């Protein structure tokens, strides 16, 4: 389904405007570049031997004092910025994707349970969701990573940072999936085919997974696109605040954090290029997500 939704041919067939196709392609190119980072990056930023402190803070190649070896300049440790960004984008996308996957799995499961069984199960799950939604994502995520920091000792925090981040983001995002899936499940549960399945005595697990789930999946895919953009932003924000990915294994947010310390000395590129990459990535995903949402939301379509 994912490959189908992300191929441009599919988008033209369902009438996507050229800007949406361009955005989808752009997002694909960025994702592809980051996946292939170890092959296409000019240097390996994870290899300590490959960079030299003597090359630190070199401006981009297109400026007057630039060095042609480093297209976008180097950071404070002499790392090639472009390579660091490619690897960083990979970390950002992996964490964002992981968070969306976890949130979707959790949210769809709980939404199915709530919608199918109703009553107390429903009330419990939905009230927990209400409480969670009444706090902003960033606050909850900060709390989770703060607690994780206190529970794990120093070195382990850095090692477990991606997992902590994924959990910290997903703890807020699952509610949206659960609400959507619950509503859709309630509609489906009242339909004849589900009643028939109940009558033949199929176990609830089978009915939920094999009969209802396929029919409630399309809004989940739409939410996931928009949530991916949001998750990448949340990860970047946490890393920028210093509670996300460590500088030894930076995401785009960590790179911006490092760069921010040099902004006042006129060294703008360390912060600006990763920031630009982040904004372009998120914007591209958002353009596609926004369009998908309008396309699959019949209420909005009538209004337009």
């Amino acid at each position: 389904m994912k490959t189908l939704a992300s191929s441009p041919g599919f988008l033209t067939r369902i009438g996507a405007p050229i800007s949406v196709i361009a955005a989808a392609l752009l997002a694909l190119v960025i994702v592809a570049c980051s996946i292939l980072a170890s092959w296409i990056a000019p240097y390996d930023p994870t290899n300590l031997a490959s960079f030299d402190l003597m090359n630190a803070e070199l401006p981009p190649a297109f400026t007057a004092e630039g060095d042609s070896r480093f297209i976008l300049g180097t950071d404070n440790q002499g790392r090639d910025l472009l390579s660091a960004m490619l690897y960083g984008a990979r970390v950002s996308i992996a964490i964002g994707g992981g968070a969306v996957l976890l949130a979707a799995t959790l949210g769809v499961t709980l939404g199915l349970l709530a919608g199918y069984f109703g009553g107390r199960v429903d009330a419990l799950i939905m009230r927990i969701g209400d409480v969670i939604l009444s706090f902003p994502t960033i606050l909850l995520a900060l709390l989770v990573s703060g607690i994780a920091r206190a529970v794990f000792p120093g070195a382990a925090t850095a090692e477990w940072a991606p997992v902590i981040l994924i959990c910290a983001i997903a703890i807020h995002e699952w509610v949206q999936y659960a609400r959507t899936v619950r509503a859709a499940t309630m509609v489906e549960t009242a339909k004849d085919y589900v009643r028939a399945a109940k009558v033949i005595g199929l176990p609830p697990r089978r009915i939920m997974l094999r009969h209802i789930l396929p029919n409630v999946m399309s809004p989940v895919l739409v939410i996931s696109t928009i949530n991916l953009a949001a998750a990448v932003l949340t990860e970047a924000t946490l890393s920028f605040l210093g509670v996300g990915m460590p500088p030894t294994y930076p995401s785009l947010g960590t790179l911006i954090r490092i760069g921010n310390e040099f902004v006042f000395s006129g060294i703008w590129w360390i912060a600006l290029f990763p920031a630009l990459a982040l904004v372009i990535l998120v914007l591209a995903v958002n353009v596609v997500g926004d369009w998908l949402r309008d396309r699959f939301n019949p209420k909005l379509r009538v209004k337009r």
Partner: protein
Amino acid sequence: MLKVLLSRLGQAALVMLVVSAVSFVMFRYVGDPVATMSRENASVEEKAELRRSLGLDQPLIVQYGRFLGRTLRGDLGISYRNQRPVTELIAERLPATLELVLVATILSLALGIPLGVLCALKPDGAAARLVQALSLVGISTPTFVTGIVLILVFAVSLGWLPSFGRGQVIDLGWWSTGLLTASGLKSLLLPGITLALYQLTLIMRLVRAEMIDVLSSDYIRFAKARGLPKRYIHFRLALRNALMPVITVTGLQIGSLIAFAIVTETVFQWPGMGLLFIQAVSFVDIPVMAAYLLFVGLLFVLINTVVDILYAVVDPRLRARSA
């Protein structure tokens, strides 16, 4: 009516109980308070004595009860890092954050409403399309990037505005304000704009959607048929009704804005509650974290409850439905 009121208050109390329980668990189980508070080479007996004097040997329920009691009296413990009462720290930082949030809210309303109206009145015009496209860029740009870019342009390159701190503040009783001095106002500008931009997109999109809704309603069509002037129809009749939900959402958003100010305050080294909290997170200063959670939780619950109750007062339909 009384029933609605009671059920809403009950719900609010329940949420606060949950939040306080989370905050208590953090306080009690994340890290060992005895280890943090005792001397480096304290003996086992000394530690046991400290444990007893802190009441940590009591049953859990008793400990939680005491925690609630202390919290209600406004005693939230002592910061591990600053060695000062947490309540004092928060009270000191509160004015800075509230002033920032106030300025950001005013800015975002002042810009968001006209832009939203523009987009609703001429949805296919060039200006509206441009604003719509920019708003998508707006949502995709994280707050800290906006802040860094503003600092780069206005503080580093042009040198017009200060990039960190509150400037000169004047104390009015316990409230320190930066709104009365020139340097205080100048310092407020960049962080205020940064925080406002986060809110702006939301307000703009909401005004646009509400305006489009209202403009297609019968009474507007009737007003048009009567030949009333366009300006009167748009601003007197339509905008007024479209603004109702905008006011509600802006009110509800104040809580998130306070939480989101964490990022803005970090970028601009603004000495508010957010900066206090983020420092607490990186230093694992549990009492400050727990207190901030309690405080923001209380704020959220208060705002939500007041809005819900007001709704029930204003709109009889809601009263009937929930009763």
